[in-house]
């Protein structure tokens, strides 16, 4: 009975709620491992990844927000540690560039589809037409 009471009191101290677990998983998947640069710290086996996962975990437990944890990482490792580059004037080209290029491509296609000015046809007389047709039949 006393053990049960003790567990009830101590439980909340080492409980890691589902919400926190979700935050942790989301965060470690959007932080890049600088050693194995094509992996997030969630996937990487590098020592640094393990240390940074631990750091993220400690910060969540200490009640830090996601923004604070991201700021902590970028203050030390720069924007490259985030998989999602921040949206700032200096990254506008990176974020909007592809869409602008796509739009430019569509515009170009549209312009090129417009039919060229029709060339006025020289009217062909009926007799000339018949003569031409007979001519081509004879050569078959």
């Amino acid at each position, binding site marked *: 009975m006393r053990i049960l009471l003790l567990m009830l009191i101590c439980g909340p101290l080492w409980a890691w709620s589902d919400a926190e677990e979700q935050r942790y998983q989301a965060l470690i998947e959007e932080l890049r491992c*600088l*050693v194995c*640069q094509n992996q997030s710290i969630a996937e990487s086996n590098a*020592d*640094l990844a393990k*240390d*940074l996962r631990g*750091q993220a975990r400690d910060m969540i437990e200490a009640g830090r927000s996601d923004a604070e944890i991201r700021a902590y990482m*970028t*203050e*030390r*490792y*720069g*924007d*490259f540690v985030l998989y999602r580059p921040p949206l700032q004037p200096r990254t506008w080209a990176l974020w909007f560039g592809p869409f602008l*290029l796509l739009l*430019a491509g569509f515009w*170009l296609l549209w*312009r*090129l589809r417009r039919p*060229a000015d029709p060339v006025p046809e020289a009217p062909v007389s009926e007799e000339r037409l018949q003569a031409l047709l007979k001519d081509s039949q004879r050569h078959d």
Partner: protein
Amino acid sequence: MKRWAFALPLLVVVGLVGLLGAGLKLDPTIVDSPLIGKPAPAFELPVLGGDRLISERDLTGGVSLFNVWASWCVACRLEHDILVELGKRDDIRLYGLNYKDEPDDAQRWLARRGNPYRLSAMDRDGRVGIDWGVYGVPETFVVDADGVIRAKHIGPLTEDYVNDELLPLIRELKDT
């Protein structure tokens, strides 16, 4: 209109190729440090082989090199001779950050190869390394007399880097 409509995709492609080609020449393993121009991160660690503590305050009062090293780091052997030479200079103070290492292994490594450092801080769990943005070993930081980080070199120090960048920077810092 038709004439330059044909040139436009070509220009775009040439522009893209130029941009991407330049990008291919960059080394992605060299990550720029956001700490350049900022004060050295605070720390307090025991000294390797001693019974005192070392902190970021020890890096003030003169131009310092803070070299991240470990006995398990193979690349560190490549720069050791250069560090020994730098350690002999009287215009730089050389300090070490012994990163994620065992004190015994670290001591043995220095005994075998020579200890170029005035002092080495023992960062056994790598937490101080994280504060300094360390992601590989070796790395070297240049800290000025006011304790501001002025440069960071990723990888072993080379003759070229020392002659072309490090010594000129130190000279510049001395003059200010």
